[in-house]
């Protein structure tokens, strides 16, 4: 029995089907990330778990109990929103304590809980400020603190880092990972950023158009994608897709990650023309064009020099390539 179970969950907005039957079990203490392009239904699914959206069909079970008709506040979960959603008229302390106050906790319990959460997130100096007096990163830490205070059975994160700048995003990501290690509570985290998914998750749920495409650990998805969508979505820079017939294989496509292509000025399987080069210091990305395969990305470690329009030869590591049938499914 999982901490959260979804059984054939569907959702319609009017006549449009946004969630088309989702089955999923999230184990207790797991960090599960829903990832997918915008509009894939991942946020809607999260809001359905929270009880903020009605379920059209199927069952949602928390700890084995069906919660479809339970109000959000009674599902014993906490949610962190992309826009922080702090109450503008309350101080940080009151923001964090409101849920407990609503639940009828005593003042000393509330103070103890908020102080503990504040200590975890180093919010003590900010406790008497209003949200308007905080920076974006501080606001998101308060929002996370508000979630911790309730000691929920399940944490829900709805793209919590999307409004933060790059440096803060990394810092907050590490903080969330640390919190999960300390609290050991089940967490569900929605993001469109596959790097966040890869770095945080125990298990990633890749969604597209209201359906689950694949569920697995980050490395399972990376090393064993079920179809071209998952293969292209996980990993950065994106996987290269080549024409299989041109390589003398059964019709369909062949996927190869940029790091599994070698480049040479002398000889190789695929001759291509360099069209762009990105030097990042630690690695170099070479974009080369081939008339049949299109644009191919090669990832090289260290600094390398190629000039635009130069002809190069690329070689595939055959043991690292993935074969897909014309429908995009992985060939086994």
């Amino acid at each position: 029995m999982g901490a959260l179970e979804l059984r054939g969950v569907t959702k319609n907005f009017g006549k449009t089907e946004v969630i088309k039957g989702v089955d999923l079990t999230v184990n207790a203490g797991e960090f599960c990330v829903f990832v997918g392009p915008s509009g894939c239904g991942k946020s809607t699914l999260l809001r359905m778990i929270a009880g903020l959206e009605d379920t059209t069909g199927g069952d949602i079970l928390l700890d084995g109990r069906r919660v479809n008709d339970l109000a959000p506040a009674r599902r014993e979960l906490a949610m962190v929103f992309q826009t922080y959603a702090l109450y503008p008229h309350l101080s940080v302390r009151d923001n964090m304590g409101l849920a407990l106050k609503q639940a009828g906790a005593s003042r000393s319990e509330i103070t103890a809980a908020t102080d503990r959460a504040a200590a975890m997130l180093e919010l003590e100096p900010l406790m008497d400020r209003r949200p308007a007096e905080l920076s974006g990163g501080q606001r998101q830490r308060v929002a996370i603190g508000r979630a911790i205070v309730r000691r929920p059975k399940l944490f829900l994160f709805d793209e919590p880092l999307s409004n933060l700048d790059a440096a803060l995003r990394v810092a907050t990501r590490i903080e969330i990972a640390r919190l999960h290690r300390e609290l050991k509570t089940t967490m569900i985290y929605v993001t469109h950023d596959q790097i966040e998914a890869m770095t945080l998750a125990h298990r990633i749920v890749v969604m597209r158009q209201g359906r689950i495409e694949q569920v697995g650990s980050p490395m399972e998805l990376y090393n064993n994608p079920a179809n071209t969508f998952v293969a292209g979505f996980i990993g950065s820079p994106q996987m290269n897709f080549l024409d299989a017939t041109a390589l003398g294989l059964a019709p369909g496509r062949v996927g190869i990650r940029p790091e599994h292509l070698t480049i040479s000025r002398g000889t190789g399987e695929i001759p291509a023309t360099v069209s762009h080069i990105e030097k990042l210091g630690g690695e170099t990305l070479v974009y080369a064009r081939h008339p049949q395969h299109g644009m191919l990305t090669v990832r090289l470690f260290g600094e390398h020099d190629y000039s635009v329009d130069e002809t190069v030869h690329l070689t595939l590591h055959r043991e690292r390539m993935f074969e897909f049938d014309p429908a995009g499914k992985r060939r086994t």
Partner: protein
Amino acid sequence: MKARASTGRTIAAHAVLLAYTLIALFPVFVIVINSFKSRKAIFADPLGLPLPGSFDLVGYRTVLHQGDFFLYFQNSLIVTVASLFCVLLFGAMAAFALSEYRFRGNTLMGLYLALGIMIPIRLGTVAILEMMVASGLVNTLTALILVYTAQGLPLAIFILAEFMKSVSDDLKNAGRIDGLSEYRIFFSLVLPLVRPAMATVAVFTMIPIWNDLWFPLILAPAEDTKTVTLGAQVFIGQFVTNWNAVLAALSLAIVPVLVLYLIFSRQLIRGITAGAVK
């Protein structure tokens, strides 16, 4: 170059606005200065300022002694404040429901409620009077409050619904997860955030109610339910009009609305310029 162009534009804008202010305030100014003059001085020199020779408080004395002007003021205030309260409360609640909940007929309901903006309520005067007679509300302040609430609601709902749509969904959802009731979400999260819009609606609702002569005259003309605007009519006769008293009554009638306006004005400006000024 650019700075100079904008200075020129600023001067032009100010000139236009000042001219408009003068035109708008001139009648008020004439009423106020003449209310402090003797009858003779009003007719001799209507535009003259009250000087030692022409200064006279006879108008104010008449108003305060003849008729029960304090009662009229009280009636006007009760009607205006009670109607304003009802319009803001029910208008905001309806706007919240329309903007927040998905239910069958939502759009239709919104259109129906906004219809009143285009149809003047006075067209229904006869039916309203019949209803008030049937329910025994003629010559009560309740009749006026009900009518003014109905009159103010359409615009209030229309404006407030637009503003409420702009309140973050995440905030309301956070409240729901923390266990706030829909009423608490409405009163303590949403209403404070649409306060500028509420002030705008309050001003636009309040002034027509305060100034109205039509409904008090028809629905509540009795001595103890008269409003100020109706009370001032006693000084206007078919043959003789007591101008001192009329002008004094009107000058006095400006004060309470002015006070209410000043209370709302800071919020009002924010409400009107929301979105227009970044």
